């Protein structure tokens, strides 16, 4: 696990650099065991930085979320680097963003965190209800929870986020400074749940997704948190033409989710943020992983692995499989 003292030292050094304007990391949250993003602009603010299994969010989204407000005439844009802390999974978002030329490589400074997994906060809150303030640490294969002056140890398997149990890339695939020793791959995705879903009849599948999508309240959290959804002007928001209406009903919700899944085909890097933030618990990764698996099997392609790679859906080879075309 990353040593938090070392983390702060590195952060102090980085934010003091002339060519760095902002450092995005984690700090303790305001409730329970949670952690939240920290935006560090000067070295005084580094003391609050942490990394722990509570640091679930994918900070790479902030690189593309940051609004470029119009500059008054004569004002030069601040093009200094933004430093960002990323886990293995999050780092793939940076890679894919670079593949898609979302920004220049020289405009970011990557602080890589080799990661042994983060918790599923919902499971943690179930296990320790009503805790106002606490911390989580990882020791070997256990999670250590400290709160109200006591410590409790739980095998990590019980409370780990589902995505971590399928994680193929625990060590960041891109980094300028690696904050800890590399972590070997300790898990893989066997897609068993996808296979089970594929085995169902069309009617069963439709019934399943109809129920899921009918609960969607169209809060757009899944889109907003997604590191790969960063169009300045999302087609699903457009009024001319209207691809999906604003109305919250099964038909429009379905259009919304299917469009999003298609737009992520060959691009989704499996950070699982969409599913994590969904307030009505729609299993969105079931859709995204189905595409991920198809892309992997059909084209031998995993997005977010190599910066030099061309985006899957903008390349063509005559040997591409096309037997799925009706």
């Amino acid at each position, binding site marked *: 696990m990353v040593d938090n003292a070392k983390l702060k030292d590195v952060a102090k050094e980085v934010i003091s650099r002339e060519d760095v304007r902002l450092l995005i990391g984690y700090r303790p949250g305001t409730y329970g065991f949670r952690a939240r993003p920290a935006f560090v602009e000067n070295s005084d603010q580094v003391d609050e930085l942490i990394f722990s299994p509570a640091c679930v969010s994918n900070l790479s989204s902030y690189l593309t979320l940051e609004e*470029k*407000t*119009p*500059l*008054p*005439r004569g*004002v030069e*844009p601040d*093009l200094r680097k933004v430093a960002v802390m990323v886990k293995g999974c999050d780092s793939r978002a940076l890679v894919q963003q670079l593949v*898609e*030329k*979302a920004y220049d490589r020289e405009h970011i400074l990557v602080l890589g965190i080799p990661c042994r997994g983060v918790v599923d906060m919902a499971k943690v809150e179930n296990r320790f209800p009503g805790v106002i303030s606490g911390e989580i640490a990882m020791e070997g294969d256990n999670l250590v929870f400290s709160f109200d002056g006591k410590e409790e140890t739980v095998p990590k398997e019980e409370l780990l986020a589902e995505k971590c149990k399928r994680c193929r890339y625990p060590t960041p695939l891109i980094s300028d400074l690696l904050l800890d020793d590399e972590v070997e791959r300790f898990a893989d995705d066997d897609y068993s749940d996808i296979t089970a879903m594929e085995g169902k009849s069309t009617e069963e599948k439709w019934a399943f997704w109809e129920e899921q999508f009918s609960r969607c309240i169209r809060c757009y959290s899944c889109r907003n948190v997604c590191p790969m959804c*960063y*169009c*300045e*002007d*999302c*087609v699903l928001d*457009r009024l*001319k*033409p209207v*691809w999906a209406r604003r109305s919250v009903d099964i038909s429009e919700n379905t259009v919304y989710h299917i469009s999003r899944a298609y*737009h992520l085909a060959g691009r989704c890097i499996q950070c699982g943020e969409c599913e994590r933030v969904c307030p009505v618990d729609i299993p969105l990764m079931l859709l995204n992983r189905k595409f991920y698996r198809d892309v992997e099997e059909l084209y031998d392609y995993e997005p977010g692995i190599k910066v030099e790679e*061309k*985006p899957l*859906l*903008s*390349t*063509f080879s*005559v040997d591409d499989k096309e037997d799925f075309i009706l």
Partner: protein
Amino acid sequence: MNGRPKIGVYICHCGINIAHTVDVDEVVKFASTLPDVIVARDYRYMCSDPGQALIVEDINNMGLNRVVVASCSPRMHEPTFRKTLITAGLNPYFLEMANIREQCSWVHEDKIAGTEKAKRLVESAVVKVRRLEPLEVKEVDVEPSALIIGAGIAGIQAALDIADAGFKVYLVEKTPSVGGHMAQLDKTFPTLDCSACILTPKMVDVANHPNIELLTYSQVEDISGYVGNFEVKVRKKSRFVDVDKCTGCGACAEVCRQAGRIPNEFDEGLGMRGAIYIPFPQAVPAKYTIDKENCLFLSRGKCGESPKCQEACEAGAINFELQDEIVEFKVGTIIVATGFDIFDARKKPEYAYGVYDNVVNALEFERLVSASGPTGGNVVIPQRGKKKKKKEDEEELGPVIPKNITFIQCVGSRDKSVGNEYCSRVCCMYTAKQAHLVKDKIPDAEITIFYMDVRAFGKGYEEFYDRVRREGIRYIRGNPSEIFKRGDKLVVKAEDTLTATPLEHETDMVVLSVGLEPRSDRREIIDILKLSSSPDLFYLEAHPKLRPVDTATDGIFLAGCCQGPKDIPDAVGQAKGAASAAMILLASGKVKVEAQTSVVDEATCRGCGFCVEVCPYSAIELVEINRAGWPVMVARVNEALCKGCGACSAACLSGSIQQRSFRDTQILPQIEVLGVK
């Protein structure tokens, strides 16, 4: 075009092609009720002069500003009706066609349902036509020169025609000499004139023609640009011989330490050459080339005390320091004439090609029977791939003359098991010719030909086939299943399918009439020019009947066997066709560029470059713009290059790149009409 759309709808009967399954009257009635439709009419043949006159009259008298024609596919007649609109003074892009023939009447039987569908198609065209915008057709100048890739008979003929018309031609050939496969042939069917005798004058012509720049031993590396303005980069491989100094005397080849040790490609490996060589005596240009893989000095850095060739060359032409040279030039049009490969008979292991010396392929046989070939035209069993026998043995035995020769047709053609379903079109005739030549040279030889069908379709072909049969050559209808050795004879196992008799046929030599295949290096040109292939993997023409020499890319044409197997007359005919197509562009000097191009909304483009990658015409690039003070990258379309294929708009996630006349706002209402009701 201001004010409300005033739409005219014109519904064609196409004789009974449409009227048979679509109630045209009902569609007319329906169309007249649609919003903004001022007039709806039908006519027996809308594309005829009176049909078009109807439209022009209505535009003039009723002030129509939009036209829908419900007839056939736009592929044939969209240009016709665009011209009609121009005649009436309307922008030609205010036209929308509803395809109620190919997509309706031809594919349906039920008249009631067919009529309903036709109504929907018409309505969808009406909702689109109201949203169309006027577009401007631009013209660009054409560079008055042509590039021809491949200098076989097709490339040579096309080059001569274009050059004779007064345009500059760059003729690029990969090998050291022009001539291609035709130069390897002995006699040509059905007239039996000597291939070299009719070809070499043309070879000399291309070398001497003032308008032709001949680039042999050269390869096209890159082509960018578009019709009228292609930029070409050619690599002139180093021959290590200064072609300006080389006199072609051949003194170098005689002294080469590798002389007689390297299989000569021109003789299909049956003859030998040295590391410095000329492929054949009539090669054009008559300049020597050093094969750097086999040259001792170039591959090992040492050739005895010093390279003998250099000493022998009085002209001082040999220079081991010579490097590849890159030549760049602009052309207006391109003809691809890259030819074919012969089928590799090793893919049919049952015929034991490559196992027995006396099983040869037809091109090898062509070299054996040729007076300029390695045996001086004596048909003997070739000794190859083996160490030279002791001299005494050879003297004792002498060359073995086969007295019984068997030909097998359709090797690698009409054969699904090797992936070639097509007929190679030349094998029946060249087999008959080769059989005839054997009869000429070894009068007492027994000759048998195994065949599936004999296809003697050309002028004088059937007559020639008849003549050969009368010469006592035995045709057995059957596809042999195996060739094996028994004693010093080969045995061909087959079934005579006319008498249903299995047979074992003993013979001295088997000639496999191998078919023609797409070149193994065909991808090089595909990658450079983005050509398409047909299922047989030959390059695809734009239309199998009406545009047989065009490709899908404007300004790029096909000639010869790269488009499909052809005999010499057909290859020459197609070459002349391609040359004439190229000359239309060159002579007019102007070319119209697509108006339905893509356009980028720079305010929403996120500069991901997906469109840049998918564009088959390299028409899009990323450029930096200033967006409210921030430098951002966005896509930009070069409208001269854009062909309006729409690949970019399909790839764009944010819908920021749209194709004119096919914008989302124009197509979605169509889909709504077709799908929602």
